[in-house]
């Protein structure tokens, strides 16, 4: 059972190759234009399957924050603003807070020592992107306001890319079908070899 499970683990990566090759073969060697287009769609969805497989993580969930994470976050931020001076050395925490503070700057400027904190934060805003440290990816609860563990959610980026790819796929399919209809109107067939035959006998 373990062996099969291990195979199943990489099974996605095998299956996308198989499906892709089925599609590619149809695109190159089928005669019927609509069959070619179906092959094209199969080919493109196989690539999308590959991309989606990249984004998969074990024991992760869909890339949408939980309700209580979203609403708990606001409370955590507010709590953090009081004692944030203690955490200046925490790059991650600072980055999140710095963003928050600049965004909410006007709302929260009540504390007496807030002005001083703001200065520190302003420095961090500039290099927030640069200083992002990739090695310690777990956010500890209470530090940064949002207790999000990156391993808890799947990679949203590939999903975005593949939304675009699906759109491109349907657009190409639509144009392909339109060309097919035009060819049918002119030749009365949608078999490629019959069309080529007609062109040969008709013109030479």
């Amino acid at each position, binding site marked *: 059972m373990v062996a099969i499970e291990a195979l199943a683990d990489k099974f996605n990566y095998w299956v996308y190759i198989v*499906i892709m090759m*089925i599609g590619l073969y149809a695109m190159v060697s089928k005669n019927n234009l*609509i*069959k070619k287009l179906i092959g094209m769609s199969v080919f493109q969805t196989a690539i999308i399957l590959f991309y*989606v497989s990249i*984004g998969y993580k074990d024991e992760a969930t869909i890339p949408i924050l939980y309700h209580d994470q979203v609403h708990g976050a606001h409370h955590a931020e507010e709590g953090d603003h009081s004692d944030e001076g203690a955490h200046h050395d925490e790059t991650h925490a600072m980055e999140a807070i710095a963003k928050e503070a600049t965004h909410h700057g006007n709302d929260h400027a009540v504390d007496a020592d807030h002005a001083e904190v703001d200065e520190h934060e302003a420095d961090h805003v500039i290099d927030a992107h640069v200083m992002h440290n990739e090695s310690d990816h777990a956010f500890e609860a209470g530090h940064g306001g949002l207790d999000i563990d990156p391993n808890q959610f799947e990679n949203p980026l590939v999903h975005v890319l593949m*939304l675009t790819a699906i759109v491109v796929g349907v657009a190409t399919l639509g144009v392909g079908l339109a060309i*097919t209809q035009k060819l049918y109107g002119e030749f009365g067939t949608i*078999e490629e070899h019959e069309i080529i035959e007609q062109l040969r006998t008709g013109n030479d």
Partner: protein
Amino acid sequence: MIWIFDMIILIFLILTAFISLRVKDLLSAAMIFGVYSLLMCLLWAGMGAVDVAFTEAAVGAGVSAVFLISTILRTSRRSSD
């Protein structure tokens, strides 16, 4: 046990992809292609790509199949291969 479910879908995926390119009747091919898209959408939903699955359900299984069928009805149903 989710992987058994995944495995079944993957095998059916290969089968539907193969059959839809194999049948001589284009209308059946288009329908089976719709089934293929739906299976793909299930698989992605299982892998947590809900947005992608949603789009594929609307586009691949829905609109693409309609486009294919309307073209097939406007041209011809038979296919030599």
